[in-house]
């Protein structure tokens, strides 16, 4: 024991932790945090914990990963199947990244809803916005390092968007790619970005963020009717801290419990679900790829598909910049006043609308109903109950329907593409003349098939489509007649 004490004293004499670190650990936080409301304050620590997990697993991965276009894919497979625990390192790195993004958004929403970003903690929020950008940058560059088909085409999509910047677009593309095309230089650049540049900036911002958290103190749980006033806040907060509790151990234990659960969930997911990918080989000649970004970018992916052409450049290039400035402006627009979410309906609405928008766009991105289903005709034959009662001409039409890949965009009885309407009951909506015109001329975001079908094929196709009309519905008399069953037209079976 005596030796331990001697070593400790020797270290303490040099480090003087009792004077420096200990007061920081024991700095007072509002006493309310000792109550159950304290559980609302763990999300930042959880984000930080996941970041630390990212650093450690990232370092492990970097020992094996080969950041060259020629070898990256093989090194990922080596990690998955050969390196001891390599698959687990990849799994934890992926799921911890997911956890980090999730907890970051939860933390941000909580800080916003509890008005913790208000005076005097504006800068903490602004630095936090920087941390958000770095995290998303790391998420994207990490996806590129998982060098597979999705990764290759992900870069392609990113530079295609960047290439739309007026005037300097081509130079930006060149700079990002490190050359004329996606190759070895490109992957090296993203590797450097992912392991040096972005983490470097992130650590610097994080140091400021944590410094501010300690210096400006943790905000007290908001009470309705107690607005933040610059003139009196400091005094009130000082008074509050006089009855405060030390950060260590009270608040830290709660953080510890939440973080431990977070880590256990991440490791469990990594063990059960395993690492993500790599998928298809990143080879530009394998054109049958159907690239999808990682889940955090699905809303952006969806927006690119759904935005009207006139707004496209703005939504791709302008909106993200405006979004970042809006976030930075938040503490200046509403930096004082009520903190409680109960008295801030606009703030609550903003959070709700944002989350609902992201979720709807994300769902659209995941299902992408706007995309043709490339293998629809070979994967899903025309339902047998439809084919069973067809005349030879109508059967011919069904074949035309399959062969001309109509199924890629149109479903029959729900199966097939969802880019266009389901055609099972098109006979109710359109008369044969209108169908012929639609097939031949296209329109309404459908290509014209005039060049691809002769008149006999068109006639057979339309006969097939007309025949599919469900019983009990009248045929459409005029183009685009309303979809209403006519009771008088009911036919006895």
């Amino acid at each position, binding site marked *: 024991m005596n030796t331990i004490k001697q070593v400790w004293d020797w270290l303490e004499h040099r480090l003087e932790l009792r004077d420096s670190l200990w007061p920081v650990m024991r700095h007072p936080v509002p006493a309310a945090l000792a109550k159950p409301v304290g559980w609302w304050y763990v999300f930042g620590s959880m984000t930080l914990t996941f970041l630390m997990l990212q650093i450690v697993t990232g370092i492990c991965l970097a020992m094996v990963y080969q950041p060259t276009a020629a070898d990256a894919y093989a090194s990922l497979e080596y990690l998955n199947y050969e390196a001891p625990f390599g698959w687990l390192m990849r799994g934890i790195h992926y799921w911890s990244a997911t956890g980090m993004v999730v907890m970051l958004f939860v933390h941000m929403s909580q800080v916003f809803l509890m008005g913790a970003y208000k005076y005097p903690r504006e800068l903490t929020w602004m630095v936090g916005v920087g941390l958000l950008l770095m995290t998303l940058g790391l998420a994207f560059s990490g996806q590129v390092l998982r060098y597979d088909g999705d990764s290759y085409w992900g870069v392609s999509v990113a530079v295609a968007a960047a290439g739309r910047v007026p005037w300097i677009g081509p130079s930006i593309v060149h700079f990002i790619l490190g050359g004329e095309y996606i190759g070895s230089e490109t992957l090296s650049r993203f590797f450097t970005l992912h392991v040096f540049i972005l983490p470097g900036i992130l650590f610097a911002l994080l140091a400021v963020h944590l410094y501010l958290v300690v210096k400006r103190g943790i905000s007290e749980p908001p009470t309705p009717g107690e607005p933040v006033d610059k003139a009196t806040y400091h005094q009130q907060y000082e008074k509050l801290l006089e009855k405060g509790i030390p950060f260590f151990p009270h608040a830290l234990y709660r953080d510890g419990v939440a973080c431990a659960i977070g880590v256990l969930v991440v490791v469990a997911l990594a063990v059960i679900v395993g690492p993500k990918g790599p998928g298809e080989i990143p080879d530009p000649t394998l054109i*049958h790829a159907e690239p999808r970004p990682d889940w955090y970018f699905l809303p952006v992916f969806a927006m690119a598909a759904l935005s009207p052409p006139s707004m496209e450049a703005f939504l791709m290039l302008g909106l993200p910049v405006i979004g970042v400035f809006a976030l930075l402006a938040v503490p200046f627009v509403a930096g004082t006043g009520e903190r409680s979410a109960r008295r801030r309906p606009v703030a609550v609405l903003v959070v709700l609308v944002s989350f609902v928008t992201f979720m709807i766009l994300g769902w659209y991105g995941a299902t992408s109903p706007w*995309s043709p289903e490339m293998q629809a005709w070979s994967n899903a034959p025309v339902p047998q109950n439809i084919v069973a009662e067809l005349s030879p001409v109508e059967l011919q039409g069904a074949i035309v329907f399959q062969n001309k890949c109509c199924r890629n965009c149109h479903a029959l009885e729900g199966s097939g593409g969802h880019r266009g309407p389901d055609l099972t009951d098109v006979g109710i909506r359109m008369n044969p003349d209108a169908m012929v015109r639609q097939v031949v001329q296209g329109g309404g975001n459908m290509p014209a098939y005039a*060049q691809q079908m002769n008149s006999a094929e068109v006639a057979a196709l339309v006969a097939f489509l007309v025949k599919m009309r469900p019983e009990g519905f009248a045929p459409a008399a005029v183009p685009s007649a309303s979809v209403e069953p006519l009771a008088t037209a009911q036919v006895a079976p």
Partner: protein
Amino acid sequence: MKHATSNSNSTDEERRGLLKWTAILLGGLASAAAGIPIVGFLFGPLRKRDDQWTTAGKVDEFPVGKTRLVDLQNPLHSLGDGDAGKIAIYVRRADEATFQIFAINCTHLGCPVNWLADAGLFMCPCHGGVYYEDGSHASGPPPRGLYQYEHRLEKGDLLVKLGHLPTLQQPG
């Protein structure tokens, strides 16, 4: 440090002034000496290389009226590219002497478009862009038709000028 001599103050200030300016000057010089090469290195890839003529195949390999996917080695490829150093193009032979060479990249956001011969359409799996067989825009979000590469026929060979990733401001 204080000296007893009467003029010590002014010499001291002179020395300090000299030291200050030397530090600023030398510091600036050192920053430039280290910084210029670093910035130059970082922005080095902005120097562009031109596309190169490369042989896509014999003219006879392309049947009239058909569109074929051709896999090539990117003429600009370098060591360490692996499969990424390859490039794919669509070659359409409209008639005996008329060729069209399309990039596989969708003009919307660069995803690989698929040629569906039966339907006579190019379809993009990402955001649903569709093009006709002559590369013109059929439906979906793409702002223009498919990118086309320059080409010429020489001694029975089809030569195509390519290399860079085509984008809206730098098409084929």
